[in-house]
């Protein structure tokens, strides 16, 4: 990530301890900034809030798996037409392309999958998502644009 990505607009940066109780704080901060500074509809702010929750949950799990006590960085930039959120972890990284596909919902085996729903949700909810490896872990970039119609799956 470089600062050009966040040029213009209000920026909030916060580092949350990599613990489950702080995911609600990340949701709250991102939705408050999006509500005050962007023209996103409430429904789309709810979608972004959910995507942020999923990304932060994954980051915290990555930290726990990596055994690091470092925090998770959440950076949110809200302009009138675009809200961008970065969630950066210091876990071991992962390849989203390697995620297993879930069996079709009509297959009884579908019930074996209690996890792994977060990334498909993120992809369906935001206008743009990017998973990039960093030297320390993974950076997830979520983008919501005003004027697009929401869920695209």
């Amino acid at each position: 990530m470089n600062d050009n990505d966040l040029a213009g607009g209000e920026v909030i940066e916060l580092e949350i301890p990599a613990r489950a109780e702080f995911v609600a704080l990340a949701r709250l901060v991102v939705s408050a900034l999006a509500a005050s500074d962007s023209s996103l509809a409430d429904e789309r702010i709810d979608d972004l809030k959910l995507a942020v929750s999923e990304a932060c949950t994954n980051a915290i799990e990555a930290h726990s798996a990596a055994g690091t006590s470092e925090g998770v960085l959440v950076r949110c930039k809200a302009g009138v037409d675009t809200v961008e959120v970065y969630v950066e972890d210091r876990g071991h990284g992962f390849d989203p392309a390697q995620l297993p596909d879930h069996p079709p919902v009509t297959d009884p085996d579908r019930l074996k999958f209690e996890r792994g729903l977060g990334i498909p949700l993120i992809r369906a909810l935001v206008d743009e998502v990017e998973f990039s490896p960093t030297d320390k872990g993974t950076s997830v970039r979520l983008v919501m644009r005003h004027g697009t119609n929401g869920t695209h799956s």
Partner: protein
Amino acid sequence: MDLGLDVEERDGFAVLSVRGEVDVYTAPRFRERLIELVSEGKHKIIVDLEGVDFLDSTGLGVLVGGLKRLRSHDGDLLLVCTQSRILKVFEITGLTKVFSIFDSVDAAVSGGADGGAAT
């Protein structure tokens, strides 16, 4: 963050009403309560999500786990939800086809007893 988990009996069903936000922090309590109910022998459970303000994939995981556990006891887990922002999470993940989702506890009680579902 508060998570409300109240249980009442209704015509042979245990109705678990969930209030507040269900995420990675609160989901373990929700999971434990469901497991407790099953181990108390309650195999027909209605989870009322009308008081839920937020639910993410960890909450979905608890519900999928609960359904699986109940089906292994020949039981069932029915949902009550009319809020579009919560229903949306089930729709995106395809779980509307896995769960029977009703408009009210009354509808779930009568629908569940017939073995039918609204969706």
